[in-house]
């Protein structure tokens, strides 16, 4: 029933979208506002219908309607509610429906409230936007329908791919699609501007749309990177995979578009650039969808090879050829006769940034299709790996950061070399300080030092810009205090200061990228339980393996104590989930983040008895800067997107309505940033970390001193036992494994008592009567005490019972046993200690 409704509704949506395109066109031809109004209603109807279809699919997922193939393939009864929701866009069919809906929604928003600047362009933009909506709706209906039925009702669905069971997956795909869909708006307005020959004002008129698309695309990319870091367990966040590149390419061109739009607004120049960048951004979205779904490019992330390739290819060719022909036919009105400023001016830097974004786009495009290109040129297929991309794009990114750093130093005219001299000092200081600091901190590869110098320069000049403007306001007639001055700066010129904030985010991210790409450290370790192993600045002690079965998977975790430079740092619990039905395992890494670096642990395998486990260990320097920079970047983008009060002067009732819209926008924007923050920090940084005051002393470290009132009435102080080997056993009467080791401890005690070895049993969280009962049951004769208050257990950092510490004659910990100990183990250890 739902499936039929869904199919019919999507079919209707297609028909209405096509009608709306025709009606809008007819309205332009006849200059008839009735047709235009009808087109507008058509657009809203399309949005409503596609929303209904999406709702039907959602209801099908929530109601476990497994007779629908798409639901059967991506859901199961046991799936938690939030994952059922995110399953709607977990596969190709559903994501195309979501895409169509968002496309229609954006079209609705564009036509609903045209501003004075967009009004004359909206009719043609409606035509193009409706055609785009119709294309995606047609693909959804005819080629990739989520409402296809199986003709039978399977008892349960196949479940969601375990890798996609991550809260980040709720936000990541919709954010990307919002970005993709948003790019169709500047594209449609660019074409409308060309058709109507009004090529002057359009970039400014759709600036907020472009910004929003850019912001969502950036959010989607960041969330994707964070998801890879959190879930895929390979220690990285960006692998230059074609699917990742598909999102990055339009992001490059739309970033360029934002900058060239500023140039057109200010100087009237860069008209061809703006038009082409809008066209390329949209074409690259189609291209990304085409490559990842056509099987043209090998990728592990790609959707199944599907039959969509030829249709998307046709759409790309039509879009490109049509747009370029249109640009060519209007070439006479695109020439800009204004003289340009010199290269060493803000104009020049904007130009260089544009060139760099273009070369970056071309580089990544070439890398993505390198095998095809090199085969045509040399007959030999070369393939570009991450090394290739890092090498090719690294210098270009560095040049971009340099441009960010130099731009504030230059005036808007070429003659401003003087300004450079007067403002250059903070930049040079910043470069020198960061480079020296990095070198002292051990980042000594010269390429990275060049990177740090550039980052230092850019950071300092951007900061100096804030400081100067804040100082000017606080010294000025208003005499505001600095904080208030900063606040009003953001209030007055959101574009400028939001932009600076975005640049600050980029600079911070650059720091993280240099650290993680050039200094990452990776190794595999095989750890035996209780034996400390040093790795980098850390010492890892694998303690124990645990497991718990869940609905459809078995979860196994390893618990490790982590020490840095000998001091207890934290405990980490990397996990591995084995999904039997999927024949797949998902390794969930555990990580400890600090300002300097991330320690990232992955559980890779273990022995049958759980005494030995294999781990992958990654140390990612400066990784926190990447994520923090990402947040700053998003906040800056949100500030820039914000409509500022004085931008448009409107009458009071309308202003009140806008105010409401602004507030709703504010809440949505805040929610997006908070969601991004939670997705990026909450689950990642907090995962597997358990706050604890102290850890076990490592072997070789002094055993914490204690004084005990023994059950026989005497006292025992560890400090008095220097010169003697001491075995300290933590146990409890309520612990079955402790009962197993009691006889062994008693045997060892009677064996080594004569040689001066002291045994002491410390009962943890216990009562004297129970302990006495146990002593008489096992005939224990070694000293025994209760750890009243648990202070000793805490000092020794025990995480369970039994645990046994062997302390040498110098009072240092020689051996640690987590879990029961045997006569043989103690014999080996005591013999070697007594020989010394």
């Amino acid at each position, binding site marked *: 029933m739902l499936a*039929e409704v869904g199919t019919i509704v999507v079919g209707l949506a297609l028909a209405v979208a096509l009608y709306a395109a025709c009606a809008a066109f007819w309205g332009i031809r006849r200059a008839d506002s009735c047709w235009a109004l009808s087109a507008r209603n058509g657009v809203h109807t399309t949005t409503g219908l596609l929303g209904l279809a999406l709702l039907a699919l959602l209801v099908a997922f929530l109601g476990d309607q497994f007779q629908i193939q798409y639901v059967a393939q991506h859901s199961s009864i046991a799936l938690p509610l939030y994952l059922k929701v995110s399953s709607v866009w977990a596969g190709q069919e559903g994501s195309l429906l979501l895409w169509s809906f968002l496309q229609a929604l954006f079209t609705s928003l564009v036509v609903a409230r045209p501003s004075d600047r967009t009004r004359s362009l909206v009719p043609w933009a409606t035509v193009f936007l409706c055609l785009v909506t119709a294309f995606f709706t047609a693909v959804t209906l005819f080629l990739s329908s989520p409402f296809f*039925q199986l003709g039978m009702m399977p008892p349960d669905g196949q479940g969601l791919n375990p890798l996609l069971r991550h809260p980040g997956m709720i936000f990541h795909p919709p954010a990307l699609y919002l970005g993709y869909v948003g790019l169709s708006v500047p594209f449609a307005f660019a074409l409308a501007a060309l058709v109507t020959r009004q090529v002057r004002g359009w970039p400014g008129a759709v600036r907020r749309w472009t910004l929003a698309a850019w912001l969502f695309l950036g959010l989607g990319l960041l969330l994707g990177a964070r998801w890879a870091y959190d879930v895929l367990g390979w220690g990285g966040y960006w692998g230059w995979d074609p699917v990742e590149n598909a999102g990055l390419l339009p992001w490059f061109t739309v970033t360029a578009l934002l900058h060239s739009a500023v140039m057109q607004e200010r100087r009237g120049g860069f008209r061809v650039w703006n038009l082409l960048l809008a066209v390329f951004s949209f074409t690259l979205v189609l291209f990304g969808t085409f490559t990842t779904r056509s099987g043209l490019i090998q990728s592990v992330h790609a959707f199944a090879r599907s039959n969509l390739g030829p249709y998307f290819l046709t759409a790309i060719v039509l879009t490109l050829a049509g747009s370029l022909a249109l640009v060519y036919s209007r070439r006479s009105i695109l020439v800009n006769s204004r003289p340009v400023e010199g290269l060493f001016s803000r104009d020049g830097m904007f130009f260089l940034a544009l060139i760099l974004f273009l070369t970056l786009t071309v580089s990544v495009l070439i890398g993505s299709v390198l095998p095809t290109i090199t085969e045509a040129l040399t007959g030999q297929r070369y393939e*570009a790996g991450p090394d*290739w991309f890092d090498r090719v794009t690294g210098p270009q990114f560095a040049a971009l950061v340099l441009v960010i750093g130099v731009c504030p130093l230059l005036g808007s005219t070429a003659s401003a070399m003087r300004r450079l001299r007067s403002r250059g000092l903070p930049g040079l200081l910043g470069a020198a300080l960061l480079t020296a600091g990095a070198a002292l901190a051990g980042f000594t590869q010269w390429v990275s030092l060049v990177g740090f110098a550039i980052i230092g320069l850019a950071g300092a000049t951007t900061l100096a810009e804030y400081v100067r403007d804040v100082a000017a306001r606080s010294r000025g007639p208003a005499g505001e205090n600095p904080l208030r001055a900063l606040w009003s700066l953001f209030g007055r010129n959101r574009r400028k200061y939001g932009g600076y904030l975005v640049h600050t985010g980029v600079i911070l991210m650059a720091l993280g990228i240099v650290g993680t790409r050039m200094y990452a450290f990776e190794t595999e370790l*095989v750890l035996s339980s209780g034996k400390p192993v040093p790795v980098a600045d850390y010492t890892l002690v694998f303690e124990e393996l645990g497991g718990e079965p869940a609905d459809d998977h078995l979860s196994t975790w390893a618990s490790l104590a982590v020490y840095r430079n000998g001091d207890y740092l934290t405990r980490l619990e990397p996990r591995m989930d084995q999904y039997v039905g*999927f024949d797949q395992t998902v390794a969930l890494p555990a990580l400890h983040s600090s300002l300097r670096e991330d320690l990232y642990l*992955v559980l*890779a395998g273990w022995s049958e008895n759980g005494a030995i486990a294999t781990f992958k260990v990654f140390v990612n320097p400066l990784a926190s800067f990447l994520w923090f920079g990402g947040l700053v970047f998003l906040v800056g983008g949100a500030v820039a997107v914000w409509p500022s009060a004085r931008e448009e002067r409107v009458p009071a009732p309308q202003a009140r309505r806008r105010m409401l819209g602004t507030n709703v926008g504010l809440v949505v924007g805040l929610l997006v940033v908070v969601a991004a923050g939670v997705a990026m920090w909450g689950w990642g940084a907090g995962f597997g970390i358990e706050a604890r005051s102290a850890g076990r002393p490592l072997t070789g470290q002094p055993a914490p001193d204690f004084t005990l009132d023994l059950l026989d009435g005497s006292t025992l102080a560890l400090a008095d036992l220097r010169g003697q080997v001491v075995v300290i056993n933590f146990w409890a009467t309520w612990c079955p494994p402790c009962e197993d080791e009691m006889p062994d401890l008693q045997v060892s005690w009677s064996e080594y008592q004569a040689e001066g070895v002291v045994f002491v049993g410390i009962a943890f969280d216990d009562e004297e009567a129970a302990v006495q009962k146990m002593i008489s049951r096992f005939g224990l004769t070694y000293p025994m005490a209760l750890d009243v208050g648990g202070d000793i257990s805490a000092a020794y950092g025990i995480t369970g019972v039994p645990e046994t510490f062997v302390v040498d004659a110098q009072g240092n910990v020689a051996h640690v046993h987590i879990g029961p100990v045997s006569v043989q183990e103690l014999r080996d250890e005591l013999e070697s200690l007594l020989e010394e």
Partner: protein
Amino acid sequence: MTGRTKFVFAGLLIAAAVTYLIVSSTGSTAHYFLTIEELRAMGDDAYGRNITISGAVLGDTIAYDSSGPRVTFTVVQVPGDPEEVERGGGLAAVLHAAVNDLGAPRLEVVYNDVKPDLLQHEAQAIIRGQLGEDGRFYADEVLLKCPTRYEEDVPGQSGGA
């Protein structure tokens, strides 16, 4: 030089630098993309170069030593050309045919890493690494794709909307 020519000149300079970066990186860090047949045809030339191989995994040959950790397995020749794969009836069919073809060229792969989750019979492996003097392929990176999972063939598919 007028302002405009300066701009053009700067743009060309950047383009030239990026072209150089691309060409030089292709020479030094890009991998040859080869099928097993093509690797065999290269003979001694192949030793020590960065190579990417694609092949079908033989499930029986997967051996994992978690203490290394090291995993060894054998891959069988599959065509590299997407069109040829298409003619063979799609990736799943080509992979299935490959592992059952006793005459097809094979290659033993050594991967000093943890066994990847998707390493299983009839998976398509894309392996980056170098050919060793002992004739085995030493992998730096293994990417895997299981057509059965990603193409999502539903058994007993019938009917329609």
